[in-house]
């Protein structure tokens, strides 16, 4: 067996960009702070030096126009990557994303595709508050013409980003801040992980947990811990929320007969509802019990750690929900969590114990 190469999500993303730029001279990257010393959480470090100013661009604080300019570049045969350090900033550019990028291909009769990747950082932690932490994947997934990718594992972050760059369509690539810190084995070579294919990260037979991005990591941990309660949960990491991999979802539910969807966004009108609806409008009889969903309470994100503690779903919430769906006693959960050494030290509002703020 080859030696494993353990790197974190940020390094994996950096590598995906680096290798894509190396391979294809039409790829370029632009965003506020892309060439700066912090390099967008480390994901763009060193790129300007390697690929020069002509392919690695900083930009004015003009989200809407810059989205238009990369569309213009994309229909000129380039493959732009546009980066927003927070999804929230991209709300200024929804006109260009929804009215133009998503529709250009169809509305002009399929003559010009828009091979564009827009990376947006989502997530939570460290008191970012209402305007710096939104998880608006549902909004993008509702728009025909866009693809929406939400990786969890570093290896997927790399492979899916490469696939997104190669895809001829506009792809919204959502990176939860905490997947930048997650580590895993990442192959060194350039490889594309196909969009639209979910990944079963843990096999199980009692319940299907569907999730994506950082919540897929939490779901996996929860599922592992549930083993000690003799619960066998299957974890489906969606990877892409548009298009959805309905086949994998249905196959899993056929096996388990139970469904919990875990999302990082507001529950109301979120992607979890879409998944549940796809199941019940086509295969309701597969379900032995009522499906369930977990997401954020329908409330703007507060800043105080005293509040975020109760705002974000976590391993415990997921475990409890699984028990609810299975009508199992959830009282042992507290103890299981208390005894797990890996969960101790870390505060709920940081990705790991070494995190010091303030971004």
């Amino acid at each position, binding site marked *: 067996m080859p030696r494993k190469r353990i790197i974190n999500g940020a390094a994996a993303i950096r590598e995906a960009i680096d290798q894509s730029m190396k391979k294809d001279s039409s790829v*370029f990257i632009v965003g506020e702070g892309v060439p700066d010393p912090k390099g967008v959480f480390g994901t763009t470090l060193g790129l300007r030096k390697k690929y020069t100013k*002509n*392919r690695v661009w900083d*930009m*004015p604080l*003009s989200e*809407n*126009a*810059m*989205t*238009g*300019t*990369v*569309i*213009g*570049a*994309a*229909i*000129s*045969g*380039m493959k732009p990557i546009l980066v927003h350090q927070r999804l929230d900033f991209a709300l200024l550019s929804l*006109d*260009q994303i929804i*009215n*133009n990028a*998503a529709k*250009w*291909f*169809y*509305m*002009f*009769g*399929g*003559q*010009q*595709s828009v*091979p564009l990747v827009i990376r947006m950082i989502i997530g939570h932690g460290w008191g970012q508050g209402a305007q710096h932490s939104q998880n608006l994947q549902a909004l993008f997934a509702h728009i*025909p*013409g866009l*693809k929406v990718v939400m990786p969890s594992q570093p290896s997927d972050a790399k492979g899916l980003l490469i696939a997104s760059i190669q895809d*001829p*369509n506009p792809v919204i690539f959502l990176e939860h801040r905490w997947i930048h810190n997650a580590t895993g084995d990442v192959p060194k070579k350039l490889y594309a992980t196909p969009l639209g294919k979910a990944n079963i990260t843990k096999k199980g037979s009692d319940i299907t947990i569907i999730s994506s991005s950082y919540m897929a990591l939490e779901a996996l941990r929860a599922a592992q811990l549930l083993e000690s309660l003799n619960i066998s949960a299957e974890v489906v990491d969606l990877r892409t929320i548009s298009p959805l991999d309905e086949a994998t979802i249905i196959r899993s539910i056929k096996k388990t007969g139970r469904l919990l969807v875990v999302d990082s966004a507001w529950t109301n009108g979120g992607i979890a509802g879409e998944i549940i609806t796809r199941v019940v409008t086509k295969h309701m009889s597969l379900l032995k019990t009522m499906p369930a969903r977990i997401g954020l309470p329908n409330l703007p994100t507060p800043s105080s750690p005293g509040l975020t503690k109760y705002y974000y779903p976590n391993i415990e919430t997921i475990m409890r929900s699984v028990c609810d769906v299975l009508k199992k006693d959830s009282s042992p959960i507290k103890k299981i969590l208390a005894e797990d050494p890996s969960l101790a030290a870390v505060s709920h509002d940081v990705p790991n114990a070494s995190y010091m703020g303030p971004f």
Partner: protein
Amino acid sequence: MKKNMPKPVEGRHIQRIYKTLLRIRMVEERIAEIYPEQQMRCPVHLSIGQEGIAAGVCEALEMKDTVMSGHRAHAHYLAKGGDLKKMIAEIYGRETGCCLGRGGSMHLIDLQANFRGSTPIVGGTIPIAVGLAWAAKMKNEKQVSVIFLGEGTTEEGVFHESLNFAELHKLRVLFICEDNLYSVYTPLDERQPERSRTGIAKANGLYVDSGDGNKALEVYAKTQKALDYIRSDKGPAFLEFSTYRWREHCGPNYDNAIGYRTEEEFEMWKKKDPLVQLEKIGKFTEQYKTSLRSKLDTEISEAFEFAKQSSYPKKSDINPNLAYAS
């Protein structure tokens, strides 16, 4: 000779500008005439009265230069050499249209002619046109990207963001602003203070100029000067030309009666008809004019015939997979 007076425009350019202008006029008048048949089932924004700008600007362009536009795009599409049949078929919603019938009048495109697209979200194509120029710079291509916009469009933030970015990287962009005094039925004084839009572009560092949009030769000459500047990579340029839309904002009719502007204002502008002005300068013979008109008439009739004979797109075009390239 007055200082800075542009050198006189050569005859062959005058003739070509005239042809373009007349052709646009006749096409749009035909649309207006036939629109009440209710077979062009989409909004149409005619540029009758404003064609001098499209004709003058595009005469100064090279084939490789690109043009984009907004909701009022027929003139720009035609002046840049967009296919007439495909445009009419598009307005008729037929599968032979330039967007296969998916777009209608407000979405025109002809890649052969380097007319790279028009869309009706005000300001929406401005940054895209800037992006064309940016990509050209990255690829070391030399074409100029022209974007047509209305004076109302300069109220959108994205216009200002685009000026900044185009100048920042000295991109080969030519902004052409057509000031027809109105945004739909709203006059300028409910939308903008006493300000000159050229002043704003200039404050951003762009080359600026302005002129009479109903004098197509002036438009042509000023565009040429701006293009010289742009082609020497000194940066983008912004030109504003004053003009007037004769018919209603959207649709085939006259609408002076509804009360947002006066009949006098309209008549005043109609006297400045860019077509008539050019005919005077061109001193074309009656015979030339008649034969040109009749040739164009035939061409236009054929285009309408082509459109009407074409089929509607097939039901299979309603297929979610078509939203994505593969």
